């Protein structure tokens, strides 16, 4: 198993391997999104308390979960990049940073659009929204340091280091923000972390969560392949690939 994993980390082999998977990922994403959206918007019952606006959770919650999940994936790739110094893991770090920032931005915007009908204002210093905002700053930090260093391999290592320092700090920040929030604000969040909604509302959420993960695989593979072509443009196999197209 280890041999295969090692072989996969060479850009050339990964490019061929991922090429086979791309169409499947694309198709599966579209199917899952279709099912999830249909189920969440049409089938799931109206919430007795919030009425229809709760349906925003079918994109807000998966996006928020993804923003955290992508950061952890980025930190793991960063660890691999610093320890085993594989080119592929370095590329994963820089690409995850952008995708993670997009998911975090989505979670923030949908959180605000959900807050308006529910709490009457777009922005409340609610513990989860505040943590999400800080997570966005952490992503911007990783993107900023990656883009400010010319040599891409050094840039990836610096970004990896920051991602690892960040991932150690995320639980601490999360804990301190929750503590800070409970101190200043009476507990107002309607849906706790683990939605205790009845199954008919819960299932579409899980489907959407899986849809987001498959989508993440799809867009990550595409971005990695682009970066491989860009960095390996001088190699023979890329030239053959381009000519053979």
């Amino acid at each position, binding site marked *: 198993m280890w041999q295969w994993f090692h072989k996969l980390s060479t850009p050339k082999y990964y490019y061929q391997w991922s090429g086979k998977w791309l169409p499947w990922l694309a198709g599966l994403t579209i199917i899952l999104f279709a099912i999830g959206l249909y189920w969440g918007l049409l089938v799931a019952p109206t919430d007795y308390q919030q009425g229809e606006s709760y349906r925003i959770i079918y994109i807000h919650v998966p996006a928020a979960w993804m923003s955290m999940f992508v950061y952890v994936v980025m930190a793991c790739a960063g660890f691999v990049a*610093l320890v085993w110094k594989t080119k592929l893991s370095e590329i994963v770090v820089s690409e995850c940073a952008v995708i993670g920032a997009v998911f975090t931005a989505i979670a923030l915007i949908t959180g605000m659009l959900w807050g308006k009908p529910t709490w009457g204002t777009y922005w409340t210093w609610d513990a989860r929204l505040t943590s999400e905002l*800080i997570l966005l*700053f*952490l992503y*911007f*930090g990783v993107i*900023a*340091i990656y883009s*400010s*260093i010319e040599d891409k391999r*050094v840039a990836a*290592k*610096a970004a990896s*280091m*920051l991602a*690892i*320092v*960040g991932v*150690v*700090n995320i639980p*601490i*920040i999360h*804990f*301190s*923000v929750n*503590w*800070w929030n409970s*101190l200043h604000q009476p507990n107002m969040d309607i849906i706790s972390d683990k939605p205790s909604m009845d199954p008919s509302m819960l299932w579409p959420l899980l489907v959407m969560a899986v849809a987001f993960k498959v989508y993440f695989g799809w867009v990550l593979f595409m971005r990695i392949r682009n970066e491989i072509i860009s960095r390996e443009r001088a190699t023979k196999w890329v030239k053959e690939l381009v000519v053979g197209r």
Partner: protein
Amino acid sequence: MFSALITIIRRDLLVAFRRRAELMNPILFYVIVVTLFPLGVSPDKEFLSQLAPGVVWVTALLAALISMESIFRQDFDDGSVEQLFLSQHPPTVLILGKVIAHWLITGLPMLIIVPLMALLLYIPQQAIPTLFITVLIGTPILSLIGAIGVALTAGLRGGGVLLGLLVLPLYIPVLIFASGAVSAAITGLPYSGHVALLGAGLILALILAPLAISASLKISMS
């Protein structure tokens, strides 16, 4: 090992004292920023003392951030960073020494102006000891985390702004617990919980930060 720590602290303090004029800069910066708040917000006593903990600690974050740059700037320019990694002593010990020296120059002096700040911001008498404790425990954490950021951005242009973007989010827990402790003290509530958490943060930073700084320096040098 311990002697190497003392040696590098003495060396950095000696270097800093050779440019005595610059030693006052962090404190002056701090006092100026603190005086901006009453001017910008309102000089009303009630309002200011409620705002004081946040003002004190947001300013501490900014002062720490601005004075962080000097910790490795000179070492990168004169080439003594490379020598750190050739020593018989582990680089993390030498780096810890450098951070302690930097804290003694920029963090510790904050303690001197705590009474002045309490005066300017109408912080009541009984909260001043808490202010002392939080500054004593909090500022070393700022130096340790800030040094990681400096080690990563040392060779880059636009280092200052980039450093802020990297490091300020990581400063947030210190801000929350330190200002929380001071505001608790002002309102007479117990603040030992906050201080304990700050202490835990300091120990965590003392153990992990030197490793991260050493790795970051190796990355910046490569």
